[in-house]
């Protein structure tokens, strides 16, 4: 009898046991996969470097510091200017590029609800950098004339591909009073060409 049971375990039982183990492993794998975030979404998401206004965010493409944020219903650049029924937000930026292609081509304001307002009709003068030479420049973004809770300014060197790279995230205070003030202002924000070199 004992010999028979032993034979059974050595033969068909062994196969069944192996099958059960495989099924268990697959089930555990499924549970683990379901509980982990999507791998592609994680590896393709940009790395975010948070910095307050006046603080430098250390990015791969250089150091980005938002010095000041202002607003109005109009901006005036060297060759063009634009008005809005909302508000224009202008961020004055100090950039210390580490590479030749370190300009800021993507600038956006995002809120806690997932809304994103990118450059659109606005502008970025933070382009044409020389690695190691400080640049003083601006980005201008069009926003609705209302409070934007949880607003953050996002700055990145490219608007083409955000994978495997980092971006600066600067919290903004865009409350009702601030936005109303900007919406009432008709003084154009001056947007000159960027200046290069030590100030």
């Amino acid at each position, binding site marked *: 009898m004992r010999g028979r049971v032993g034979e059974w375990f050595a033969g068909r039982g062994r196969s069944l046991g192996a099958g059960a183990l495989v099924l268990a492993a697959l089930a555990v794998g499924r549970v683990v996969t379901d509980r982990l975030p999507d791998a592609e979404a994680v590896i393709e998401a940009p790395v975010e470097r948070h910095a307050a206004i006046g603080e430098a965010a250390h990015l791969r493409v250089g150091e980005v510091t938002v010095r000041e944020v202002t607003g109005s219903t109009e901006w005036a650049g060297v060759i063009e200017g634009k008005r809005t029924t909302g508000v224009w937000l202008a961020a004055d930026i100090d950039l210390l590029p580490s*590479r*030749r292609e370190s300009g800021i081509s993507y600038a956006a304001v995002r809120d806690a609800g997932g809304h994103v307002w990118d450059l659109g009709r606005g502008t970025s003068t933070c382009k*044409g950098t*020389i*690695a*190691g*030479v400080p640049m003083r420049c601006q980005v201008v973004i069009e926003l609705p004339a209302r409070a934007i809770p949880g607003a953050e300014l996002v700055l990145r060197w490219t608007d083409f591909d955000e994978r495997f790279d980092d971006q600066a995230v600067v919290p903004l205070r865009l409350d009702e009073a601030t936005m109303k003030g900007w919406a009432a202002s008709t003084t154009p924000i001056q947007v000159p060409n960027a200046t*290069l*070199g030590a100030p």
Partner: protein
Amino acid sequence: MTWLRRNRWGLILLPVALLVAVAASSSRLVHFWLPYVASDVTTGAVGEKVHLSQEWLDRLGRHQRDVDVTITGVERTDVIRDWDGEDVPGEGPKGTTLWRVSMTLAAEPDQVLRGCVVEIEDTQGRRYQYDSMHVTPAELKLSACLNPDEEGPSFAFTDKDASPSPTTSTDASTSALDTERPRPPRWDTVADIILPSDAVPAKVRIWWDLPTVIDVPLTPTS
């Protein structure tokens, strides 16, 4: 029969299979990476003639580019070579230094050599290209490695460029669109490039179409 002996052929073929698998998955590297970076590098030395040879394309078809490049020196400069070919006082933004790459080139006058790029890489690996932006006065000569009024033939950008005129060779192998600015077979020129004042040049790179480039490492005395 031991396990190793029973599986000997499998074990022998395993590294081969791995190599084949890696090679078979390299298409992205071959098609999407290597043609767009400097992957075909000829390294020379200051004062040494380097030959660049590559195939390139325009609307007329395939062409062969053959040019000899000799980087003769890299030194600080306070003048720029302007669009008249004259040296005039010039500078970059505050905190920068202009460096002048001097070179001698030689090529058949029917070779299309517009659109060359001259770049200085510093000891920190930062790269600086010939670019008129930020140079004062903003009158830098158009091409980094050609002289004003001696640019030679141009590319065929449009059908009009490509259609043969009575004075133009119809031989697609030359792309010799007639030019009012003939280039001599051998010429000296300079490229003035802005670097931050703390940058130390370590290498000059010159190219027309990637991936074929010439690299000339610099020593502190060159």
